[in-house]
């Protein structure tokens, strides 16, 4: 199917292409291409079957796992747990006694006395036992006012507030007196 429009490739370019093809085809024929393809297909089949392994787990198992995970997330969000306070009971009041005149500290001490323990009864009991043991162990070197009653545990927000205030007070004291050192 040749027409007047059909312009051939320049002869030298055609010869170059033909020479390249001849050399490449001679090499290609001597190589075991069919064997190479068979190997690649087998390897590809192994990979595909490994991928298909994930599909062997029945759908109901995936669905059950998803429902379980969702329920766990909902339960976690609906019932937030608060761990036992890292502070000794009565810290708020002790701080208020040591640093009188600080409005924030006074308010915190009042809130701490009123705030109920946010833990479940079982967790609260365990935490109370733990706190009791810790308090007893440190009773010899703890400096607490004699009239101090055990303070209830604090929430996370309160703790953060206390920490920030603590830092602010420490900073203020260190600025006011260069000799001041915590502890």
């Amino acid at each position, binding site marked *: 199917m040749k027409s007047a429009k*059909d312009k051939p490739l*320049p002869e030298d*370019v*055609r010869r170059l292409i033909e020479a390249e093809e001849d050399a490449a085809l001679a090499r290609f024929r001597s190589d075991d291409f069919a064997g*190479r*393809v068979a190997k690649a297909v087998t390897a590809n089949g192994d990979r595909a079957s490994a991928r298909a392994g994930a599909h062997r787990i029945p759908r109901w198992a995936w669905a059950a796992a998803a429902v379980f995970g969702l329920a766990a997330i909902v339960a976690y969000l609906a019932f937030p747990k608060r761990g036992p306070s890292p502070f000794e009971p009565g810290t708020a009041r002790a701080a208020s006694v040591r640093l009188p005149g600080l409005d924030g500290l006074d308010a915190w001490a009042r809130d701490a006395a009123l705030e109920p323990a946010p833990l479940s009864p079982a967790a609260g009991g365990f935490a109370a036992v733990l706190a009791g043991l810790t308090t007893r162990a440190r009773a010899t070197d703890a400096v607490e006012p004699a009239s101090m009653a055990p303070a209830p545990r604090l929430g996370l927000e309160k703790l953060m507030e206390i920490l920030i205030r603590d830092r602010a007070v420490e900073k203020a004291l260190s600025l006011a007196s260069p000799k001041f050192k915590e502890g």
Partner: protein
Amino acid sequence: MTLEDLLVHREGVFRVCLGFSRDYAEAEDLAQEVYLRAFRGLAGLKNPATARDWLFRIARNACLDHIKTARKRRKLLVRFAPRADAADALEARQTLDPRLALVKAAVRGLPPRLGEVFVLREYARLPYDEIGRTLGLRPGTVMSRLNRARAAVARTLQESPHEKRER
């Protein structure tokens, strides 16, 4: 239709891959990739009589995909490691006859719709009607594209510094 039946056409597939590739090793890898793709899509081949056209179509697509990926990679290489790209190009030139390297670069630089017709005709040596069937074109379109592709390749060779130096 099995893989063995398709392997009957392996030389034609290899010729197509050679036309689009820079050297023998790349062509062989591409031919293997073509057969892997064909194997994966074998179930979708409705009419075994068209297996040869189907296989060449897969070869064309695999080669054009490869060229596109290589171009992207080269762009990144030029941006982040220009010396590595220069070394790569130098190595490619050294393994081939410089004029052949120019021809191959010119073919790879053609727009895909011209390059595919050029390779199927000049490398795979398919007749116009078979090229038309493979690419879904009329023979007249195949011819006009082929003429444009040949002219573009010839022009690129004439304009290359190597050719000018030899004249």
